[in-house]
């Protein structure tokens, strides 16, 4: 399986790039809160909601990956192909964020669902904040789809859930910061963070591609991160299909 620290880092830095879409939602949650303490609580509930959706999406992806791997066994090496696809998606997202690639047409078109749960964001209850987070997790996001593809590549229910949990946990600090402080960092610092985040995504994508390519080539799943120190002990026997 992919090493977790890189996933957490991807989420953490990648979320700096996502703040454009989800930041205002967290901010709306913050402005509706009375006092600093309730805001922290509500932001936590909101993040918990997002995390819950991510974990379920990861589980669905892992389960679907497992089914596809079993169903197409002998036809195609599904996990390897999924790893390649996920890597490609993440690299594209990273390059888009870094400004190397240009988005065609108008990005982030009208999302009919976006304004829908404004009522929940504006309410004061913790439960409503959790539900708002639940919906936020379903908003369209390229980074999220890349990660879901990565979860599918694990072709395993728990591993898929863990992948998305690691990614989701990584997004918590930036979203909390956006929701609580609004702007804890200066413009220059944010721009730097944005650039680092973009290349971190590219790196995660490359790791996935190298792993996928290796898997496709060798026919056996590579044990760990090809860029890190050898981790022979990390090969989980349970993840092998069949």
């Amino acid at each position, binding site marked *: 399986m992919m090493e977790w620290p890189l996933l957490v880092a991807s989420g953490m830095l990648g979320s700096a790039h996502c703040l454009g879409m989800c930041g205002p939602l967290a901010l709306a949650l913050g402005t509706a809160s009375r006092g600093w303490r309730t805001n922290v609580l509500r932001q936590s509930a909101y993040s918990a909601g997002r995390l*819950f959706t991510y974990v379920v999406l990861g589980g*669905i992806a892992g*389960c679907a990956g497992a089914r596809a791997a079993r169903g197409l066994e002998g036809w195609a090496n599904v996990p390897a192909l999924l790893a390649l696809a996920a890597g490609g998606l993440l690299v594209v997202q990273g390059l888009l964020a870094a400004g190397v690639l240009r988005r065609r047409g*108008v990005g982030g*078109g009208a999302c*009919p669902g976006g304004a*829908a749960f404004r009522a929940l964001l504006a309410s004061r209850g913790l439960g*409503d904040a959790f539900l708002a987070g639940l919906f936020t997790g379903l908003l369209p996001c390229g980074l999220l789809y890349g990660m879901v593809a990565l979860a599918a590549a694990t072709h395993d229910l728990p591993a898929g859930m863990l992948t998305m949990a690691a990614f989701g946990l990584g997004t918590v600090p930036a979203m909390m910061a956006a929701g609580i402080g609004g702007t804890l960092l200066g413009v220059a610092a944010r721009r730097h963070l944005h650039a680092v985040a973009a290349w971190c995504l590219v790196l995660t994508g490359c790791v996935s591609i190298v792993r996928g390519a290796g898997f496709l080539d060798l026919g056996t799943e590579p044990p760990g991160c090809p860029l890190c120190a050898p981790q022979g002990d990390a090969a989980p026997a349970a993840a092998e299909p069949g």
Partner: protein
Amino acid sequence: MLPPSAAPSDCDYCGLPVAGGTAGDGPRYCCLGCRFAAGITAARGDDGEARWMMARLGLALFFTMNVMVFTMVLWSAPEADPAGSAAAARVFYDLARHACLLFSAPVVLLLGGPLLAEAADEVRRGRGGVGLLLMLGVGAALAISVRATWAGEGHVYFEVACTVLVAVTLGRWLEASGKLRTTEALRSLRSLLPDTVRRVDGAGETRVALASVALGDMLRVLPGEHVPTDARIVTGRAAIDERAVTGESEPVEKGQGDGLWSGSLDLDGELLVEVVAPPGAGTLERLIDAVTDAARRGSRRQRLAGTIAAWFLPLVVVVALGSLAFHWHRRGPAAGVLAGLAVVVVACPCALGLATPLVLWAAIGRAARRQILIRDGDALFRLARARTFCFDKTGTLTTGSRVEGVERAAAAARHGLADDAALVSLAAGLATGSTHVHARAVVDEARRRGCVPVALAEVRTFPGRGVEGRRGADAAPVRLGSGTWTGDAPADGPCAVSTLCVAGTVVGRLRFAETVRPEAAATAAALAARGARLVVLSGDRRGRVDEVAAALGMAGEARLLPEEKLARIEALRGDGGVVMIGDGINDAPALAAADVGVALGCGADVSRWSAAVCLLRDDLSDLPWLVDLAARSERTVRWNLLWAFAYNAALVPLAAAGQVHPALAAAAMLASSVLVVAGSLRLADDGGAAVEEAR
């Protein structure tokens, strides 16, 4: 939260027509989403209610996710523990089954209600269909699952029931929100009218509902308020902003005796007004009704899609029941129910029925916000295909006109016209009855010279020719108009000339100077850049027409009588559609004959429009913007329809073959709805934004 004038057969939430059935008691909704969304917005201002409906959906989503996790655990269990002891596996299965049951119960309680109401409504309207089948399918999946949980063996399908409930509600609700957003522009126009007014009677001033106002009532209108219905000023004076009705941005000063249009804004004076049109029959309401009617009537393509959808629905019911029977027989009841449910969920009639109306509403609303009124949905799509644009010259390509010279003929004195002022007075008497630019110039000239227009009887306008009346003093027929019509020698000079005749004798000529509209050149260039052929069709003399046409890079055809204009439009039609742009009243026949008639500054009287499209702002540069909007609408509709057909053609057979899990079908249906709604909303939000920015 009612849409503009919901007719008896329209949805109470989004205002779109409800298929089948006649009006019954209580609210009517076109779909489950509108029913659900109406609940969210039922009590406007009641945030608690709106939040509770959203929370309901959110909670259902949360519990459904839990059900899915446990279901996936059930699916994955055999691989994780292939050699586990039978007893342990049994306990594990039982636990997971009960967890699924526990989490799906709240989903059914939270979302089952609207679906049940929808099904009951269908039965009441005598068109049992998709809602009923969905409810039966979900109910059957639940029943099989509860029985399996009870018995401790067999498969459970709680996730099917939950995902279908959540996806159907979420999808329909997204569609309903989309429909509401597309009709928002029209609603915002109507919101210019106040809900209550200040009625003044013998007892003093009371606040009453606008609807209770009757003809002849006296109302007080304060500065900053909108005029609630058509009225006449009894006392007071104020600057009035009539932008909403005429598109004119310059305020007009009005005083005692002047008429006011509903929806116009009193800028600075307190007015006492007398109601001259009952509420609902005011100018603004008639404008909005005209546009809303166009959107409601829809387009030919929409009706075609509606017809196909009307055939498609029974087909879906038959296919669903067929696959239910087939798979039940071959693979047991559970497989039958799943296959039937998958068919219904996949084909849940949305994309096909929504594809055109959403786009049409979005485009018509978007145009209305820019003071472009589209009275015919088909015209929008014809505009997208049109290749030839014909322009009237006077008043369309040229703006205004002024009298440059007055020339008296020798016979003038014989008919009692001793000097130029007398001639202008007589001409102005005829011209007051006409809205033609030359007529307006004559009236302006009379005012400038301080001449009082002569009172005339039996004044009649002959479109494209002139005005005729009868002088009071000697009952002599008087004509003001083109040389050919008045029997004058046609003079082909650089100036437009109107001839004045009394009893068939030419008594004088008025020479006019006109100026090309400032935005005409840019508009012509923009249209030419889009590959359009531009033609000037004018009744004016060749010299003037050629000059204007050449300056704008158009072809020019001069000396055309109205019926000749019709013939030219017919001749040009061979090459795609023809758009005629002209003055709303003088060019009425040509505007009606063209594939799309576009009238400039049609004024406030809707009943006199003969054009399908009206540029209220009297600004030609709205035309390229509109052409772009039309092209975008056409593309979006095509894409929507293509998607709807391809999606149904691909997935319905697969689902009927039992190859699509209902949960997957629900996801596909949701994605399909989002795609169609989002595409159409983009049109409503930023359609032609680029052009707008470029202005």
